[in-house]
């Protein structure tokens, strides 16, 4: 066994352990998503379609709110595109590692690219100094895709067994989850201002015009207000494009890959996986 393969096996073991923590978190939040979707009127097949096709937790939670608020589809699609645009950063960071893979494989990898998959896989690649397809599938599918979808199905199915969800406080799961997720994203003053202005504008415009317009207005104007904070006063703790900026989208409480201090720089050379 070569030294490289020993390193690969060790790193994969670490990846699997970290993936178990992410999977446990995904099970919890996928279940909550399923409950919230059911409460918003999604059928099981609609909730599952979101989890399989969109496969983006924050955007899916947001979509539940959009639909419940009666937001028109173009608005839902616009906000989804804005909310998920951060994946450009992850994809760009992974591109140098995966550039010699077949295009079909990169396309599949792209669909499965989430905050958690990025944080786990980039840390694994950095540990072994090259890309590892099997490691990517562990990070994306085992830790994320399968638990998220199974839990969605359980949440949206079992939610129907609850006679009076409001009596159990389940009607506050959605706004509380949105607020809690937001806390995880506030890593500097710009984010804090964006969130405060987004919420304030959202409420005022909702009262004046309607909730659908209010949510869009908050989502579009909040970031503009955040950008007014000068960079030197932003106190950003998760700089753009680093693993830390990905981890802030991971569910708070999920064990993160402990590599926030490393930059997702391109490898000096991309090696082929000997397993292939």
């Amino acid at each position, binding site marked *: 066994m070569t030294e490289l393969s020993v390193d690969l096996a060790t790193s994969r073991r670490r990846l699997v352990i970290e993936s178990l923590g992410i999977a446990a978190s995904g099970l919890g939040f996928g279940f909550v998503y399923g409950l919230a979707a059911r409460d918003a009127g999604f059928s099981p097949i609609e909730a599952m379609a979101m989890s399989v096709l969109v496969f983006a937790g924050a955007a899916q939670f947001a979509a539940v709110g959009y639909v419940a608020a009666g937001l028109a589809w173009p608005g839902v699609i616009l906000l989804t595109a804005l909310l998920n645009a951060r994946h450009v950063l992850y994809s760009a960071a992974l591109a140098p590692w995966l550039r010699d893979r077949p295009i079909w494989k990169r396309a599949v990898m792209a669909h499965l690219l989430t905050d958690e998959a990025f944080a786990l896989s980039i840390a694994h690649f950095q540990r072994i100094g090259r890309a590892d397809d099997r490691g990517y599938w562990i990070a994306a599918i085992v830790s994320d895709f399968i638990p998220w979808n199974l839990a969605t199905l359980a949440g949206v199915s079992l939610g129907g067994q609850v006679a009076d969800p409001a009596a159990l406080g389940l009607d506050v799961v959605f706004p509380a989850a949105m607020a809690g997720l937001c806390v995880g994203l506030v890593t500097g003053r710009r984010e804090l201002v*964006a969130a405060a202005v987004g919420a304030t504008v959202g409420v005022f415009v909702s009262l004046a015009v309607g909730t659908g317009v209010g949510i869009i207005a908050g989502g579009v104007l*909040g970031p*503009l207000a955040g950008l007014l904070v000068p960079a030197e006063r932003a106190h950003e703790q998760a700089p753009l494009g680093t693993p830390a900026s990905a981890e802030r989208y991971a569910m708070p409480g999920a064990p993160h890959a402990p590599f926030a201090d490393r930059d997702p720089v391109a490898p000096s050379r991309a090696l082929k996986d000997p397993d292939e």
Partner: protein
Amino acid sequence: MSTDLILLAALMAAVTFPSRALPLLVPGIDRLPRRALEYLQLVGPAVLAALAAVNVMVVTPDGQPIFHIGIEWLAVIVTIALTAWRRNLLYGLAAGVALVAVARYLGWA
């Protein structure tokens, strides 16, 4: 069983896939201006905060939006505080939901 939202899911996937795939499939296409990237990083907190606030502060009993004050506010505040303190959303969610359930059981809300 309703299937209307499957098309919406497909459209959401269609606008999500390019941001995940373009840099992987078309090297060099990720060079968005830094200001644009900074803006996009702030969309998440703004949208999530707007959704949470609108959901608990605005109700539409007769189709007309009106300001609402209720136990839901407290549940969200408790969730925020616990999540910020313990860095664990599940704890915060459990506490927020339990608070509302107990308050309603006791007839306080």
